[in-house]
């Protein structure tokens, strides 16, 4: 295994594009090192992106949007009050990944590019309408977060391509988001179901909504029917019921060691309702 510490994204992409074997990018390493240890993936070239200037920066842009560097650790996000004020759901999704120790290393980008359908940071980003910058040998592009994962462990990134930043839209007025997951313990588990809700209100009425589910399908997914159930409502019982039904209907999960199809499908509806209530309260300023 060769270890590289490129000083620019161009160099990093160059190494990856020219590599003949298995390549991995190293940011927080909390997935890469586990896979290395378990002999699941031993890269021939390991490209540590942390020496590239700016990768540890969290920047609020003049339009209110956020740019999060690819090596920003979860712990750094949870120490950023302005980011938490804007996107509490995104931050709490990130914060749920692993232990305090893992938070010292794990990144939004890593969680996304690992391609796990159960990544806790992903539904929050999708619900927020986040996008990522992707750079490759043929130039750069902006991609919606929901278009990155294509299946368990797989992404739409081509050979030599890498994510260079995460973009969260401007929060704007009267908006709120939230992320909840179900795990059997209180900490340290992979999500059995994850659900993020992001919405905007006008008075008591929901005017915009995005709902994303994790761990209930081959990828985290945006559930438009769930959003439809919310928009125009005052989060009354009928809307909550329609929301739960839409969330459950969007599930296409598997039975595995962490949960059953039946359980995941039911709990997706429960979490959607609970996350919607939190997001609604946040949007209305009841924080």
């Amino acid at each position, binding site marked *: 295994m060769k270890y590289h510490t490129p000083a620019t994204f161009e160099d990093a992409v160059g190494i990856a594009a020219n590599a003949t074997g298995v390549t991995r990018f190293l940011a927080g390493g909390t997935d890469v090192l586990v896979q290395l240890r*378990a002999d699941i993936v031993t890269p021939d070239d390991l490209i540590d992106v942390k020496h590239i200037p700016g990768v540890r920066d969290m920047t609020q842009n003049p339009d209110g949007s956020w740019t999060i560097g690819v090596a920003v650790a979860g712990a750094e996000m949870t120490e950023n009050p302005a980011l938490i004020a804007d996107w509490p759901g995104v931050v709490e999704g990130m914060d749920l990944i692993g232990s305090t120790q893992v938070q010292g290393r794990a990144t939004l980008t890593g969680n996304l590019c690992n391609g796990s359908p159960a990544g806790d940071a992903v539904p929050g980003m999708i619900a927020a309408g986040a996008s990522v910058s992707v750079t490759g040998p043929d130039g750069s592009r902006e991609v919606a977060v929901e278009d990155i994962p294509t299946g368990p462990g797989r992404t739409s990134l081509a050979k030599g391509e890498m994510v260079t930043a995460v973009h969260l839209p401007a929060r704007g007025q009267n908006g709120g988001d939230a992320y909840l997951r179900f795990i059997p313990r209180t900490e340290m588990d992979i999500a059995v179901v994850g659900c993020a809700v992001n919405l905007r209100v006008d008075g008591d009425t929901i005017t915009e909504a995005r709902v994303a589910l994790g761990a209930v399908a081959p990828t985290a997914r945006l559930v438009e029917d769930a959003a439809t159930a919310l928009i125009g409502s005052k989060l009354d019982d009928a809307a909550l019921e329609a929301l739960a039904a839409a969330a459950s209907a969007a599930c296409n999960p598997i039975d595995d060691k962490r949960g059953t199809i039946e359980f995941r499908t039911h709990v997706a509806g429960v979490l959607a309702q609970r996350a919607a209530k939190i997001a609604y309260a946040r949007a209305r300023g009841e924080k």
Partner: protein
Amino acid sequence: MALDSKTEFKYIGTRPDRPDGMDKVTGKARYGADAYAPGMLHGAVVRSPHAHAKIVKIDASKALAMKGVKAVVTRADFATDLEGEDWDLLENTIAGEKTLYDGHAVAAVAATSALIAKDAAKLVEVEYEILPCVTDVDAAMADGAPVIRDGAADHSVPEGLHPNVVRYTEFGRGDVEAGFAAADLVVERDFKTEAVHQGYIEPHACLANLGADGKGELWCCTQGHWFVRRMCTALLGLETTQLRVTASEIGGGFGGKTTVFIDPIALALSRAAGKPVKLVMSRSEVLKASGPTSSASMNVKMGMTKDGKLTAATAVFRMQGGAFPGAPMDMTTMLAFSCYDLDNVHHEGFDVMTNRPKQAAYRAPGAPMGAFAVESVMDELCQGLGLDPIDARLTNAVKEGTKSSFGPRYKAVGLIETLEAAKAHPHYSAPLAENTGRGIASGYWMNWGGETSTSLAIGEDGTVQVGVGTPDIGGSRASMALMAAETLGIPYENVRVDVVDTASLGVNEPSHGSRATYASGLAVIESAREAITKLSKRAADKWGIDAEAVEWRDGAAHPSGPNAGDFTPLSIADIAGEMGSTGGPITGHHDASPTGFGGSFGTHIVDVHVDPDTGKSTVVRYTVVQDAGKAIHPSYVEGQFQGGAAQGIGWALNEEYIYDDDGRLQNDVFLDYRIPVASDLPMIDTVIVEVPNPGHPYGVRGVGETGITPPLPAVACAISHAIGHRMTRLPISPPRVLRAIQGKGIS
């Protein structure tokens, strides 16, 4: 050995700092993997990816050709003339003709670095012929189940059972049918528990050095280094005493480190390579290929009158212990009804082999499963008859002189005292929040004595060194020092206790069976008494009086009364300072297999909240009441209570071995083998009950194991009350609870 009349203690019952505390909080303490030797090689084990397969061929030529590889060993490098349990042990250590479970060792490599060893292990080519496998206990007993090993059954198994049933037991007394007929309510239920792992945080690790001359040294983390010595020398064909085994500090054992897995392999690699070899298991190897518990399929039936008297009880326990005989169905059957005075009782037990690793002891081995089933039925009887669960237990509780369900009469025991203390505890009468249930359960472990050898020597300044052979897992050196200090009448700080190597004492059984504080403690007291006799004799010689005229108190020799003469007392330091010229070194020593161990009963109270929408259970309050006989160091007694409760909670709620249809373990990392984390648990309140054990000078009972027995039923009953459905299968995972709430059964 009888209970002393002594009831006032100066040191016993205090809470001094443990002697190894400083090393353990500064990172200096040396555990299994913390040993290094000059010229040391690193080992790696080649393991079967198949649950059941014939080994057709092993080709190590590519591995041996790798630069830095110094040796490869296979089964051919071990003794060939073994039978019985030694053969089982070898077969489990390294596969012979067949691999019997996912992760079964097949070969091992030694190389100049851990990475080279790991890479070389991947180059050992093993050709397998895959065989059908079975991992469930009921499936393994059914007609047509794959046979793990024909002819493994012993004399106890009646004809007509599947060859995977390798041991059978059946016992009882009275007329159970008449008993059930006399009952106002009879409850019968089937129960199932999954296998769990001890979950010690320190993986098995050792450093072996064995020469061609058959002399060797082994450093390893173990609960019993004499056991390790006997097992390793048998498997390698060595003379027992030519191997010196040193026990490292041990990072948890809970029964799982009373046997060997990698130690014989490291010794074989060292013998083959002519160099020291370090071998450390990964967590995945620990979960796949050390010794988890048995899993169980059970049926319990009990009858009760409307005033709470049990009239009859029967139980059937089918337990799998992996690909070898040894599931603890004997302990399960004997202890299942150990809390209750029963005239009509019957037990049946089956030891069943499956394609899983050979089970090892885990804290009160066999008892928690039985308690889960029996205490759950007891709870349902109380519920059905509208009885208070503690009152009903008091009605039937065993006491001194009661004939146990397995035969012998109890000596002084403390079940009634724990029940009364639990009933009086504020927890028992505290109001319950919505969606919260309260569970009560009692449990028992009979404890153990076992082969024990200790020594004690007086230093020139009157301080004392004690050597024991029972590795210190949870603070036992502090307890030994307290007992030595109490007996000698010298300050706790003046006693140093070491766990010494196998060359330094006679045979010691491991720290198992909750025996260390009882048996080694008793031997330390006797060693101290022997030293006192010698110290008193030196004083008597100096004073020119009879030794009988000398009384030892407060760390000094005194004339026993006015008739003995008027002499200034001689302190231990006074006598020790002159011992070289008054007869030589002064020591005490004691060897025994003490039998006066007294069992320990406990009663637990737990409140569990259940989220009705997701089925998630949260333990919100927990109280442990247990009989310690006499708590030598109460902090470490409380620690045992709390640790046992936490492990039991994990077993009840989330821990389980998950195998797929091909017999491959699905959760071989701590991420998915879910032991309780700090945020999962509440504070665990403790009440130490002290009903002295008549078989120990200071009344000590072992306390280590009982505490894991009541949590399984207590938690299950609490959840059952919270949701209104009886939970009969562990773990009580959220999907199972949700199904029960939704009325879909609890499969």
